[in-house]
């Protein structure tokens, strides 16, 4: 269970990105975070694995306070949290296989990783995960030779390498076309249902949030303005989250 308590983030320039956000995520949930650009979705996700240091508040994961963890402990926590990104964040000049293997860095000693001495199991695991996302044949291509959808699947394979218990997905389909979006979202859904991962996923499109989320929270200017089931978001709620000017667009 993940518990976020009064999480606040104020950037150095004074921008308040999160204002005392509190919510709880039971294990196995597919939580979708929605909100306008700049509403604090990315900051919230990055605070959970402390890519961004929270200003105040607590994040408890199975009773362990992530916000209080020291460097070593933090790395042990991070390797159990997979993350995928809007821009995929692959190392473009490396091969697909190497990119996937970097998911094991948290479990590999420094000198072995500097020499590229990946263990036999890790290599096998990497190939398995690439097969899982359907791009095993691209294992030895350079990452930037792949299409956007394929690159995101490499990102998913990399996250799977960590054997995570929690998956953070920061707008995973915002750079993809609708058809590819669904294929990527289905992999995330599969991780949630078949592997039992808890998923925290930020999304732009409400239609996608409704389709995949088991629960939705909404941020507006850093504040939690909605927390409930997808079908509870009616027209009034929608305007609360996105503002009066907004019109809902559908992505199928």
């Amino acid at each position, binding site marked *: 269970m993940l518990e976020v308590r009064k999480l606040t983030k104020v950037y150095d320039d004074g921008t308040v990105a999160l204002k005392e956000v509190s919510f709880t995520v039971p294990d196995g949930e597919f939580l979708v975070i929605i909100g306008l650009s700049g509403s604090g979705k990315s900051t919230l996700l*990055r605070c959970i694995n402390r890519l961004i240091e929270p200003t105040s508040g607590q994040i408890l994961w199975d009773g362990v306070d992530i916000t209080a963890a020291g460097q070593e402990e933090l790395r042990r926590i991070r390797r159990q949290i997979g993350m995928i990104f809007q821009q995929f964040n*692959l190392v473009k000049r*490396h091969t697909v296989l190497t990119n996937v293997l*970097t998911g094991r*860095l948290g479990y590999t000693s420094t000198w072995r*990783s500097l020499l590229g001495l990946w263990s036999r199991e890790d290599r096998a695991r990497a190939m398995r995960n690439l097969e899982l996302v359907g791009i095993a044949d691209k294992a030895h291509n350079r990452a930037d030779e792949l299409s956007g959808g394929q690159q995101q699947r490499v990102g998913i394979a990399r996250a799977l390498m960590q054997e995570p218990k929690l998956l953070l997905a920061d707008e995973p389909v915002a750079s993809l076309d609708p058809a590819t979006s669904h294929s990527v979202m289905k992999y995330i859904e599969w991780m949630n249902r078949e592997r039992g991962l808890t998923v925290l996923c930020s999304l732009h499109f409400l239609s996608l949030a409704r389709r995949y989320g088991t629960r939705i929270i909404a941020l507006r200017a850093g504040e939690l303005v909605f927390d409930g089931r997808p079908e509870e978001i009616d027209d009034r709620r929608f305007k609360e989250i996105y503002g009066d000017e907004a019109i809902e667009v559908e992505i199928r």
Partner: protein
Amino acid sequence: MERAERVPQPAPPNGRRLAPLLSLLFPGAGHIYAGRQERGLWIAVTAATLLTLLWWLKFWSLLPALVPFWLWNAWETRTIVQGRRPSTVKLVLSAAIIVYAIGWRVTEIDVQRLAAGAQKIRPFVVSLVRPYYVDREVTYAAFPAPVQVPCGEEPSPPPAGAGSGPTIVPTPACASVGETITVRGEGFPPNVEGELWWENPIGDRVRLRSGGEFVTFVADEQGTFEVKVTVPDVVPRQFQESAQLHTVEARYVRDVGPWRLTETSYLVAQRMGETIAQALMATTWGAIFAVPLSFFAARNLMQFHPLALLVYYLARTALNVLRAIEPLIMAIVFVVWVGLGPFAGVLALTMHSIAALGKLYSEAIESIDPGPIEAITATGANRVQVVWYAVLPQVLPPFVAFTVYRWDINVRMSTIIGFVGGGGIGFLLQQWIRLTDFRSASAAIWAIALVVTVLDFFSRKVRERFV
């Protein structure tokens, strides 16, 4: 502040006429009167500075160049009291006229001298098209004929019998000192050029002159020539009283044998190699030291802790200070330190390469995509692993490109370093220029040009491949 100034301010009731007049009296005065104190002050200070400069340098003839600025400032005052916005660009341009006029004077730009002095460098320019890479072996051929000085009782000896080779015949065959005789040559190689020498009875030789210039001859198509020479005053004291036989001699230099490489060519090749090696050493050592330094001097990697940020500032300052010192000055220091020679040059270039590469590398690191760093950090990797897997792959191509380019630059720089004793081809070039051996200097210059061109081509190829 700037925005507030743009709002037209109401002119004082009588200001409309007075303000431009005040500005004409002294620039800026009208602005201040019309309520534009800051602008007025700037203009007044500028005008005062320019006037002081003219007074100090005694450049009174440049006063007319101030007129545009003076008039424009008055015109601008009128614009302001009418409530319109003045054009700063035009004001600055009008002030620039006087600045450029002063600059022209101070730097003593003189187009006439540029044209008049051109012929002084002719020997050098001529040598540039004849680099001294190859020459041929030469022979000196000398053809003597007797001359009696002065004419006396003793009969002139008969002229040497006409053999198969070249001969010369002086007419008349006797003369006194200071008299002119004609020397006629026959049977010389067509078009050959040569010199005329004189030998007295005790074997002293002088090259003949006419009006201060050496006498030369040029044979025609048939191999004949005729030259007038004056009998030189080289009669030894003990022979002053009697007539003696002297010798006039025609000499020419002839190229024989095959073309061969000159000593200069060997020297140029050897020292050019030294220069390339110097640049290679300096670039390699520079890169080895610059890589770790550059990571400390990259802001995006050093923001994780205040202490790290301090290291960043220290590294950056060190690089900047090091880069500010010209390699030429460093070379002078190292020549004192380790003595003349290529090692001093290597050290000087290394120091400069560390600074230049360190800065370029760190900027390359700062401009990388932060995404992969974020992703690798999120997997639980430690700092070393993050640098190895997310930073290095991104910075390697620019690093290689910068390094190869630096080698190219170092070759060019090491030629200059040689001028102050840092070894390499610059050392030779400097010597040849001082000895006015321009053909050898030209050989060195062409060699440098060739090597730099080849390296430039090579470094571009490498850069294209890696980006």
